[in-house]
């Protein structure tokens, strides 16, 4: 029903390109993991290796402690929800869902019952007699999910399953996916390039780029304290302010930034950071506020737009500095040309390597 997944130094080559570069990842049983990254980052390759559709060029995959690297997809405790759903067009919905149990030699009555149970789980009671082409996109998605879950896999693999749905349906299906995952307790590995979707459903986000894992962890952690510039930028909008290490004093790092001096409280050994080292200071737009304590940045608003929950503005610092994006409170009144004073709490800033 559920099992942990262990990926050990898996690489995959296509001709001369390295699609996966020694990826290591451990997922707990029952976890909802999301592989997140731009197209071509290797997330789908990794999913195909987990599903047994591709063999890794090097490395091993263990599911529930058992090495499955050499097993074909049919004999793995995994099933896949395909991006295009791959529902068998010549079978009814119920026959689609009952296909896996049928392949396992389960009798007609039992697999019928199983199909009904699964269709009920995904909210499609009574649709078993219909054909895939009679269903809407969202319904097909549910059938694909029911079919994959009908064989009680330890691990369910989802290849951008919501990619073909419109935005509203997509948000709704995210909630349902999460609820279903909680009910069945199966380990889900879900691939997407939509970071909002990732945050909405994941217990653990794995940010990938160019065949490597850039960062992985709980959504809050990856968003608030990303470990790389790429992860910081891919998880959401961020202002990157060039900075140079000025020195260190009792647990604080002194930085000279393009906007003025900043004092960051840091734990750990600061002597490793040599004065003069170039860094970047990342500040999320919602952390730039007109009322916060800390470094004060006078600036001119160049553009402003109302987003419902906040005003998003572009502002040019005075006398100089990189243009900033900030989210001001809903009640704020701003227009291009206005003068504002922005500031951010040093604790909210993220220290990142320079390029």
């Amino acid at each position, binding site marked *: 029903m559920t099992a942990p997944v262990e990926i050990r130094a898996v690489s995959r080559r296509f001709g001369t390109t390295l699609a996966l570069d020694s990826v290591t990842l451990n997922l707990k049983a029952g976890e909802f993991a999301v592989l997140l990254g731009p197209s071509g980052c290797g997330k789908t390759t990794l999913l195909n290796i987990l599903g047994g559709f591709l063999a890794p060029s090097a490395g091993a995959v263990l599911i529930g402690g058992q090495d499955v690297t050499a097993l074909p997809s049919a004999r793995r405790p995994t099933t896949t929800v*395909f991006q295009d759903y*791959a529902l068998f067009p010549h079978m009814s919905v119920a026959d689609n869902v009952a296909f896996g149990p049928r392949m396992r030699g389960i009798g007609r009555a039992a697999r019928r019952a199983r199909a009904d149970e699964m269709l009920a789980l995904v909210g499609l009671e009574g649709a078993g007699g219909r054909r895939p082409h009679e269903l809407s996109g969202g319904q097909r998605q549910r059938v694909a999910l029911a079919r994959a879950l009908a*064989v009680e896999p330890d691990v369910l693999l989802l290849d951008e399953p919501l990619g073909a749905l419109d935005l509203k349906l997509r948000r709704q299906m995210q909630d349902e996916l999460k609820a279903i995952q909680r009910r069945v307790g199966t380990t889900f590995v879900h691939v997407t390039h939509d970071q909002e979707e990732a945050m909405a459903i994941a217990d653990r986000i794995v940010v990938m780029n160019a065949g490597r894992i850039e960062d992985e962890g709980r959504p809050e952690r990856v968003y608030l304290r990303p470990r790389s510039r790429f992860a910081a930028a891919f998880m959401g909008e961020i202002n990157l302010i060039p900075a140079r290490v000025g020195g260190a004093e009792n647990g604080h790092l002194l930085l000279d930034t393009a906007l003025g001096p900043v004092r960051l409280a840091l734990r750990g050994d600061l002597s490793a950071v040599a004065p003069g080292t170039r860094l970047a200071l990342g500040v999320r737009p919602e952390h730039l506020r007109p009322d916060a304590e800390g470094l004060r940045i006078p600036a001119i608003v160049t553009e402003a737009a109302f987003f419902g929950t906040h005003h998003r503005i572009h502002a040019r610092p005075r006398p100089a500095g990189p243009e900033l994006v900030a989210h001001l409170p809903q009640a704020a009144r701003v227009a291009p040309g206005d003068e504002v004073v922005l500031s951010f709490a040093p604790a909210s800033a993220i220290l990142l390597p320079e390029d």
Partner: protein
Amino acid sequence: MSAERAERRRAWAAVAPALVWTCAFFVVPFAIMAAMSLWQRQGREVVRVWDLSNYHAFFSKPHLVGALWNSLEITLAVTAISVALAYPLAWIIAELVPRRFQRLALMLAVLPFWTSYVVRSYAWTLVLAKNGVLNQVLLGMGAIAEPLEISATRTATVIGFVHFFVMLLTLTIYANLLQLPPNYRRAAADLGAGPLRVFWHITLPLTLPGVMVGAFLTFVLCIGDYITPQILGGNSELVLPQVIMLQLGRGADLPMAAALSIVLMAVVTLAWLGCARWLRLERA
């Protein structure tokens, strides 16, 4: 509004030549042939009296009805054998041959297609002749004591036809197999189906409509063909096209030829109706 009208006028102008052409050289000749099938030959003249005497003559003369049965038997056998032989080959090319060699394998499988149709049948007479290659090789191997009498028989006709249609069907079935999205087979394998069950539950049912189209094409081309039975089949068991061509020889009986053609046409139409219904059922 006027832009739409202009667009429609352009479209009519573009379609018109093909419509006129098809009417002038296909529909009208066919109508004339249908009319002629109701006329009669008297001496060397064609007399325009309208009755069904040609059709009556067809059904009352055993050698004519027999030709229809020969045609049907040969065509059905050829269609069944060709599909049975071509499907595995197409499957092997699509599934077992590495991707980059598939085009080559396919081109090789249909290479003899490019010999002239007439020449291909002639080549089979060389192979099947009493002292031809096949018999001499088999005799040499000691597989047979007496030369096989295949030449100028129905068997020779069937072999010649099967050779042609195996190539045609390999091509169409291969195209069908390629069009099948790989995710269907992957999904079935993912759910625990072995290679044979993937084939039985997924590949075969999904390619069946395409196979039926190929089989229908085989049926139509085979039943209307004159050359292969004429060159390979000898004169003992004539098929319908041979009988039609006989009417054009000495003492040409064009009305009878036209009537036999309409009969042939009717058989093909019946086959088409049967196939169309079958295909529609499969889709529902």
